[in-house]
C-alpha cells in the first residue's frame, strides 16, 4: 500500500521549504532587506515589500499555542489515523505553523516547549512535525 494521505502541492515558492525538510532541516523564508521571517512564503516580504527573499534554517524550536484532535477524516487516507493530533506552533523565529504532534501529549499545555522532528512519509516528501520537549 502506498501513502494515501494528501501530499503537498509544491510550487516555485514552496520548493525550498520541501527541499530543506527532505534534508532534515526546517527552513523559513527570510527577508534579505529587513530580516522578517514568514510562512507560508510569498513573492514579497509582507513587512517591507522587498522581493529579495532568502531561505534560512530555523532553530526548530517553538511553543505550543493550541492543539486539537481530528475525529473526522476529510480524506480517506486519514481514516485509520483517527483521532489524530494537530498542533499550532509558534516558532522561535516568529511564524505560526500548523503541524502534527508526535509522541506523548500528556504534557500539552499553552506555551509548552516543542521541537521539530522529521517524518519521511514518502521517498520524496518529508513532513516537519513537532514533539513536546
Amino acid at each position: 500500500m502506498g501513502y494515501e494521505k494528501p501530499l503537498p502541492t509544491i510550487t516555485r515558492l514552496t520548493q525550498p521549504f520541501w527541499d530543506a525538510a527532505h534534508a532534515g532541516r526546517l527552513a523559513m523564508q527570510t527577508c534579505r532587506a529587513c530580516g522578517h521571517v514568514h510562512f507560508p512564503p510569498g513573492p514579497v516580504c509582507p513587512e517591507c515589500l522587498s522581493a529579495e527573499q532568502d531561505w534560512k534554517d530555523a532553530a526548530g524550536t517553538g511553543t505550543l499555542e493550541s492543539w486539537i484532535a481530528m475525529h473526522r477524516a476529510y480524506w480517506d487516507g486519514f481514516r485509520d489515523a483517527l483521532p489524530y493530533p494537530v498542533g499550532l506552533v509558534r516558532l522561535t523565529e516568529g511564524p505560526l505553523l500548523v503541524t502534527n504532534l508526535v509522541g506523548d501529549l500528556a504534557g500539552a499545555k499553552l506555551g509548552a516547549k516543542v521541537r521539530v522532528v522529521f517524518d519521511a512519509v514518502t521517498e520524496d516528501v518529508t513532513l516537519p512535525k513537532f514533539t513536546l520537549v
Partner: protein
Amino acid sequence: MASQSPLRNKAAVIGVGTTKFGNFPHTDEYGLAADAFRAALADGGIDKRAIDGLVVCRIPSYARMGEVLGLDPRWSLTLPPHGRMSGIGIIEAALAIATGQASTVALLYANIGRSRRVNYGGEESPNVWDPWGFTSPGAAHALMFRRHMELYGTTTRQLAEVSVAIRAHACLNPDAVMRVPITIEDHERARFITEPLRLLDYCLINDGAVCLILSAAERARDFAQPPVLISGFGGRDAFSASAIPNFDIDFWHDPVAEAGTEARAMAGVERGDIDALMAYDNFSPTVLFSLEGLGFCPRGEAGRFVQGGTIRLGGSLPMNTDGGHLSNSYMQGWALNVEAVRQLRGGCGARQVPDAEVVQYVQATPCTRSIIYTRG
C-alpha cells in the same frame, strides 16, 4: 457635541424573504433565490420594477440571476460565497443607497450545500496544511476554543450553554430545522468532530435562500411593513495572518471591538441600549468571542457570562433568537439579519423580544462587520 454621522438612518430594510430550509435537490440557487425574492417583494408590498440595485452572494452568475428575475439594475455587486460577505453586502447596499447609486436594492443569497453534500473541508478547499490533515473551519475554531480554555479556564459545559440556548430559541421558531430541545448533558455526550468541539458546536448545513430589500429611509414608509433603519455599521478585516483560514490567534477581539464601537457611534446608541444580539454562530465559540469583543463582558469572561440564561429569551441579552446557524438555518449571516428586522417589526410570536428597539448583528470573522438596526 459630536456631529451625527451622515450615514445614520439613511437606508432602511423594507422587505425580507426566506425560503423553507432543508434538503432540496430538485432545485438550485436560482430557484431558491427567486422564491426568496418573491417572498420579500410580497412582504414589503414592493413592485419588482422598483428594484434598481442587486447584490448576489453564493449564486454562481449575477447575470443569470438577473435574467431569471428579469432585472436590469443600475448598480450591482457580486460577493464570494463566504458567510462573512453578508455584513459586507448589507453595508455596501446601504452605502449605494446613501450615495444615490441605487434607490431600492435587492440582496440575494442562496445555499445548496446540503443537497450537494458540501463538506467544508478536504479536497473541496485545499490549503497549505493539508499534508498534516488540518482542514475545515471547524478545526480552526477548535484551535481557538482550546486557546480560550487554556487562557481563561473556559469549559465545554460553559460552551454547551451557547448551543442549548440557541436550540431553545429554534424550538420557538416554526421555520427552524432543529426543533428538539437539547441539554448541557446532550452536548457533553455528543461525538467529537474536532476535539474539543463536538457535533452540537457545529452549525447546520442546509439548503435555502434569503432576500433583503433596502431603500432610502425617507421612502421606507411607502411600503407595507414598518420600516427598520440601518442606523450604524462598522468593520475591520484581518488578512495578514490568513495562512490559517477562519482562524485568529486573538479571537478577532480587537476587530470586533472596533467594529462594534464604530457601529454604536454611528447609530448613536450605547451598549446597554442593545435589546438583542445576532452573532454569526458558524461554531459555538464565535458567540463567546463576539460577546467579549463587543464588550458585553470582560475578556475571558464569556464562558461565565452565558451561564444562567443571560443569552436566552428573557435574559439580559437574548441572542440568535431565530435559532441561529446552530439550529435554525445555515444562511451564513443573512438569516440573522432578517431576524433582526423581524424582531424590530415585532411579529416574532413566541420568540419575540418584548419592545425590541435596537438589535445588533455581528460577524466575528476575518471580515468582521457589525450592523445596528433600529425601529423606524
